[in-house]
């Protein structure tokens, strides 16, 4: 009897919760349709955290000095969340001198291409051979792009964000992204009906905008 009582209590609470949701005209995530928001990963401005040792540019490329004095360059997490599946297709070649603001990575988002700009000035010494045409999963870890011998890094790094400033910057970027999506998205439901009421943004929402929108995204968000 006790076993039946415990089982019925557990199932009763689940059933009541289902009725409560129904009375609120909401659906349990298990019963949402395939294209519902519950199927789609979302992100908020609160999720962005970066390693303490990195320096981030306004163009969402980061720089980190390694123990041999080389500067590792990569793409930040904000871009991953905004664009969804992204892969670097080209990088500046080994031995090339790159100025701050020059294109250092070319990346593909679906059939569109985006240019990412170097946060520092220097010579490309090494390209991560595992990065080309591979979906970026670990932006601050294994999925870095190139190693550079930077010039005047101690001066240039003062113009980059670090520590808490990165969080503040990415929070502001999140707000800008909402405005941008509102202007450009072809599928407003992916941005979420409650987006301007403090709601979340769907991961990869930018990839669903027009080709012209992608160009504007590059201009608005990827300029150093």
């Amino acid at each position, binding site marked *: 009897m006790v076993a039946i009582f415990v089982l019925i209590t557990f199932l009763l609470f689940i059933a009541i919760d289902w009725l409560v949701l129904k009375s609120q005209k909401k659906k349990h995530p298990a019963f949402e349709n395939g294209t519902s928001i519950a199927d789609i990963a979302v992100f908020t401005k609160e999720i962005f955290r970066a*390693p303490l040792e990195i320096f981030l540019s306004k163009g969402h490329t980061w720089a980190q000095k390694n123990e041999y004095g080389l500067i590792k360059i990569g793409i930040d997490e904000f871009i991953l969340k905004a664009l969804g599946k992204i892969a670097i297709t080209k990088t500046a070649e080994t031995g090339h001198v790159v100025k701050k603001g020059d294109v250092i990575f070319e990346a593909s988002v679906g059939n569109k291409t985006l240019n990412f700009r170097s946060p520092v000035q220097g010579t490309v010494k090494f390209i991560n051979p595992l990065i080309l045409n591979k979906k970026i999963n670990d932006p601050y870890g294994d999925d870095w792009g190139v190693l550079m011998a930077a010039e005047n890094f101690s001066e240039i790094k003062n113009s980059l964000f670090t520590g808490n400033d990165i969080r503040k910057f990415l929070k502001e970027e999140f707000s800008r992204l909402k405005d941008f999506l509102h202007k450009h998205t072809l599928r407003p439901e992916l941005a979420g009906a409650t987006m301007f009421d403090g709601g979340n943004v769907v991961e990869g929402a930018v990839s669903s905008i027009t080709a012209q929108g992608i160009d504007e995204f590059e201009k608005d968000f990827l300029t150093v």
Partner: protein
Amino acid sequence: MKNSILKFTFWKVVAVIIIVAGLYSAFIRFTQGLGASTNLSDAFPWGLWIGFDMLCGVGLAAGGFAICAVTHIFNVEKFKPLARPAILTAFLGYILAVCGLMFDLGRPWAIWHAIIMWNTHSVMFEVAWCVMLYSTVLFLEFFPVVLERFKLPKILKIIKRVSIPIMMLGILLSTLHQSSLGSLYLIMPEKMHPLWYSPLLPVFFYLSAISTGFAMVIFEAFLSARAYNHGLKLNLLSACSFISIIFIIINFTLKIVYLSMSGKLQYLLILSPVTYLFYLEILIGTIVPAFFLSSRKFREDKKYLYFSSVFIISGFLLNRINVSITSLAAMSKASYFPSITEISVTMMLVVIGMWAFKLIIQNFPVFSEELELEKPVSVIESISKPLTLSE
């Protein structure tokens, strides 16, 4: 719009009623004793508080060690997003199991005796130490989340350096503890119904804890998605369900082999309420989930995934209550049904656990992935060193 704590919702009202009733029951329990507040007796000394709060609570908290084992021992990194919520659930589950124990112990103020008065021949001694140590380990496993929240990178670096040994210790302690809960019943073979008594009880408890731990991860993901509109990581949940069903099938096979080899299959033919409960446990906890989760199509459908997790948890609850209450009641002929006090205290502990979980995920980065402070120098960087030197 921010949620206000004063905003009334159906579940808030229900939770407040349950907590008020629970607090009143706690008052009765600690002022008038076990005899006045429970339906326990000398013939039936372990009831709902042990059967549900301890045996089910600890088993349902097994998701923490199961996910940690997958991510940190088998190095399957894709499960990492599930680790923090699972560790938090495990930590809260253990804390609440200890709270439940405090209600059940005749002299709760003497609980610390196990620390210095060692009785190494007692299974309860092992249980007590495992609970103490594993709760501490779970706190340490969750501690980085607190440090990240309060931005204390120096301490975080130290904790991260010792995190792997801590995780491994946690898995070891949890293995000992989950199985020793089953060992508790090995000392009373003549008092348990033959369908549930087995010398393999520690193995059954351990295997069922793993399978239910993964099912709880799925169930909890749906609860979080419902409450916070988080996206469901369906691929990970589907993989969890697959691991869960493998352990369910192993557990079931072992049970059947044991029943047949020990000549106990005949008890399945004795039609009685006890046998029906055994059949129900197998039907709900094994056959139905095995039917759905053995098909990839169903595993990748969130509706079936959710219901399968509900079935697995239900089967687990039935099994633990059957072992701890049904089987003992059947043999002792003593009747037991929990009193309102016992029920309200148990419900209060569940509600406190859910509120604590909600409060913590609202204020700490539980659903964020682990922050890597230090990446080891990769092979590629090592290769790049001579390049630097040569130029």
